[in-house]
């Protein structure tokens, strides 16, 4: 229906037809496998991550059911230990980051006024790797061979002597495999945001969500190698008899923890940061004003991204290292609260100075503030070594990080789903259903996780598959379980709401919220080329400002229509000055093939079929060589001397 709307005054009918011819994809099986459209890939990330979320959430419900009563026998300890490990691992690696990368993939090119990501094929490749790595890890569960060492997999519990079998091999190889996708995606985000911004979008006009995604991507670049190295070492220790973590042969078990948390703490912010970006992106539409203190929020994003690398030892405050060395990390962990405080008060100021339009996305933002502030307050407590030693590894910390991660990531993600659903599907959601979903989810969340503070303070350690009838434990565990089910019903309503919107929702206009960023100045859903005319940006809120808006309509110039091919614009890194027009790649099967070859490699490594692994590695090299092979061009175009 939205395909037949009148062309915008800027690009003529003929331009639109040519753009459609260059960018459009015919619906076919092949195009399903070969697409490089960031919007399709972004949607796939969202759907796949949601699927993994359902699996990890179901694991959690099983665990909560087991813990509802003392000494329950619903799950065996082996089953429980696999479930909690998969729950944590999947929520962090297979849900939170990919989900937010999905929003990033869909939105970053739209928000910066570009026609695709910088490396569309790499983007497709990243999705396939994520999908395969997720399936690789979940496939182990039905066989009872799922990882069982906790999501941070401390050695020596996870070495081959203490955990024989495939469990931890699935973990190490699965995360190494997945790391390829995350790294590829991050590089893509950085380069896209640096080079593909619309002309005029200097750094001070970059939407906060894009800042957040780029900061996240930089964190991945610097944090993920530590995890990859850790996993590689553990795999070598388990499979090939190296001794990195073996204290009897000059190894050290704390090396694992240092490397893991050098990754692990930034990873908390890798999860939360893009979600905070979502908050900054959604809020303006429902307060009718730009977020207060743009500079301060950018400061918060940048400084959190950096400081998060210097707080990792606070996860090791009970390991008995010198108190002085703890204090440097304690200081950083204390101060990192300040940028978060700045953001919270900037959002509060935005709400107090704006005019609130209370719709479902705003409700989820309110839920976010309540929950995330509580999680942040207990988080600041963990910065104090002495207090941390008492409550770490108890249910108090379980309560804390669920407040941070559900508050800081899931609430914004749900807000984002409702906010951008009209853009992505061209359909409006049902407001009443959404409100019910919010209230159930919000209530369930508080009822499920607040009591965990108490059971933790009452001395209940985490990761126990059952417990004796200690006073104060049984009641609060029962309450938590009830809350978990309420929360699940809330999420079910979200799902029903999305399905309902797609099937029955009324058609969405291009800009149902009067949003301020560029995605609202395209159709809902956007055409494959995103923008008939690439915008010229004049302010931080281009959709609210007349010159930016008219640059896509009556002030359009042919050098921003670029209908002669799959083309978009490069601009300069900091100031967003126009540089040149570039040709974007066509759809291709290479990304899928490359990901498949890697799947074969990791599967072969898992089952120790090394000849297959070598063959798969060769296949990987061949596919990359083919992918990057330069097209033959005429000499004059190349510029050859003789």
């Amino acid at each position, binding site marked *: 229906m939205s395909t037949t709307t009148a062309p915008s005054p800027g690009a003529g009918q003929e331009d639109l037809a040519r753009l459609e011819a260059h960018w459009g994809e015919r619906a076919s099986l092949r195009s399903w496998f070969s697409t490089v459209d960031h919007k399709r890939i972004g949607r796939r990330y969202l759907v796949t991550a949601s699927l993994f979320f359902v699996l990890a959430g179901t694991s959690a419900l099983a665990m909560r059911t087991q813990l509802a009563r003392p000494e329950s026998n619903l799950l065996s*300890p082996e089953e429980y*230990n696999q479930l909690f490990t998969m729950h944590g691992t999947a929520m962090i690696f297979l849900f939170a980051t990919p989900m937010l990368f999905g929003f990033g993939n869909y939105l970053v090119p739209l928000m910066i006024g570009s026609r695709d990501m910088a490396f569309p094929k790499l983007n497709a490749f990243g999705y396939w790797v994520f999908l395969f790595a997720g399936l690789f890890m979940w496939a182990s569960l039905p066989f009872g061979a799922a990882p069982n060492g906790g999501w941070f997999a*401390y050695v020596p*519990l996870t070495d081959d002597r*203490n955990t024989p079998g495939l469990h931890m091999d699935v973990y190490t190889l699965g995360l190494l495999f997945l790391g390829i996708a995350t790294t590829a995606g991050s590089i893509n985000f950085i380069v896209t945001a640096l080079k593909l911004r619309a002309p005029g979008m200097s750094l001070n006009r970059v939407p906060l969500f894009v800042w957040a995604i780029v900061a996240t991507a930089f964190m991945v670049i610097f944090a993920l190698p530590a995890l990859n190295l850790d996993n590689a070492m553990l795999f070598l220790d388990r499979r090939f008899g190296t001794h990195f973590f073996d*204290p009897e042969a000059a190894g*050290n*078990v704390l090396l694992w923890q240092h490397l893991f948390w050098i990754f692990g703490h930034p990873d908390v912010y890798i999860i939360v940061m893009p979600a905070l970006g979502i908050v900054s992106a959604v809020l303006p539409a429902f307060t*009718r*004003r730009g977020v*207060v*203190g743009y500079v*301060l929020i950018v400061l918060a994003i940048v400084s959190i991204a950096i400081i998060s690398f210097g707080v990792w030892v606070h996860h090791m405050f*009970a390991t*008995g290292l010198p*108190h002085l060395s703890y204090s440097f990390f*304690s200081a950083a962990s*204390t*101060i990192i609260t*300040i940028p978060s*405080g*700045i*953001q919270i*008060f*900037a959002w*509060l100021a935005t*709400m107090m*100075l*704006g*005019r*609130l*339009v*209370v719709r479902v996305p705003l409700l989820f933002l*309110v839920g976010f503030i*309540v929950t995330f*502030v509580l999680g942040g307050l*207990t988080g*600041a*407590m963990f*910065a*104090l*070594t*002495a*207090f941390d*030693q*008492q409550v*770490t*590894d108890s249910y108090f910390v379980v309560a804390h990080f669920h407040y941070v991660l559900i508050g800081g990531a899931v609430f914004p993600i749900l807000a984002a789903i409702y906010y951008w659903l009209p853009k992505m599907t061209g359909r409006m959601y049902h407001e009443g259903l959404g409100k019910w979903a919010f209230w159930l989810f919000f*209530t369930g969340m508080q009822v499920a996780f607040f009591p965990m503070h*108490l059971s933790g*303070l*009452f*001395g209940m*350690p985490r*990761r*126990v598959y059952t417990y*004796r009838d*200690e*006073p*104060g434990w049984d009641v609060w565990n029962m309450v938590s379980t009830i809350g978990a089910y309420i929360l699940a019903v809330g999420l079910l309503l979200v799902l029903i709401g999305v399905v309902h919107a797609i099937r029955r929702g009324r058609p969405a206009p291009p800009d149902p919220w009067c949003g301020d960023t560029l995605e609202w100045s395209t159709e809902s859903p956007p055409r494959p080329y995103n923008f008939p005319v690439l915008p010229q940006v004049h302010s931080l809120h281009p959709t609210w400002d007349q010159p930016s808006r008219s640059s896509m309509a009556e002030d359009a110039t042919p050098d921003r229509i670029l209908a002669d091919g799959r083309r978009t614009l490069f601009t300069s890194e900091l100031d967003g000055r126009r540089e040149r027009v570039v040709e974007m790649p066509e759809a291709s099967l290479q990304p899928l093939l490359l990901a498949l070859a890697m799947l074969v490699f990791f599967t072969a490594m898992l089952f120790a079929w090394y000849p297959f692994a070598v063959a798969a590695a060769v296949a990987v090299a061949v596919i990359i060589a083919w992918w990057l092979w330069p097209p033959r061009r005429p000499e004059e175009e190349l510029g050859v001397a003789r």
Partner: protein
Amino acid sequence: MDRAHDLEHPGRRRPSRRVGPALVVAAVLTLAGCSGGSPSTLDPGGTGAARIADLWWVLFWISAAVFAEVMVLLVWALVFRRGRDTRVRHGQPLRFVAIAGAGVPLVILVVVYALGLRDLAALGAGPGRDAPTIEVTGHKWWWEVRVPGIDGATANELHIPVGERVRVRLRTADVLHSFWVPQLMPKTDLIAGEMRETWLHAERAGTYRGQCAEYCGTQHAHMALQVIAEPRSQFEAWLARLAAPARQPTTEAERRGQQAFVQGSCAGCHAIRGTGADARVGPDLSDVGSRWSIGAGAVPNDAGHLGGWIVNPQTVKPGSYMPPQPVDAQRLPDLIAYLRSLE
């Protein structure tokens, strides 16, 4: 229509305003009232945990105040700043954000950080040179307890004299564990290949429950221990019992039980002082009859559970390293009688 719609909302919103504070109030009430009997960090029995409990209450009240502040602002905005006025507003009042978001938190955090340093320094000032020392070794999934200079050992239970600081040396025989007695002292991890030290101090006599706090595999859930704080004389009696051979059997049944123990498979893993059984794979059983539980907190220590445990520990504590024992049905009561007599 819009107005009616708006009027409908305050009623529906009320729960949101109350949920947070209500939970906080509920928390305060339960924290203050409900701690009898549970190993609660807020019911400290000695200096170490008492410091942390005090620190917690400071942190709690600061957090409550900050949370209340945020809620007031949020609710104020939701009540007074809603409307259908769709004009876009600009302007960047940075001062409010800088003061409320950075200035005030900085002051609070510096104070809190200082308190944290003070308490960490207090925890770091351990017992004196000649304080009693106890050695605890973590095993999958039980605690071995020894005293330097004394040959004997016990499991999942250690005694300390009331009012004195006792040094605890921590080692692990396998994976990482964490030594945590919530009412006495924060955690210290047991690190493979290294020795760690902590200390315990109890102001009042009593029994304090502890549990392994670092995930250590299948039966991490059942790796509890008890710290018994008692007057100095009783502590010394415990030391003496630890040094002495186990109680000799007195009845015929106990004697048969001892024989079954020493000649059967039990002695392959366990020790009982003075019987010639001296294996160190499983816990030393010389005082097993007086212990508070079987399987490091898995089940209470009574004849019925003991019998069940011997016949098949895997139903009680699945994954435990003790295999089912082929004890014949006639010998079992003797074995139970003997083990129950070891006090």
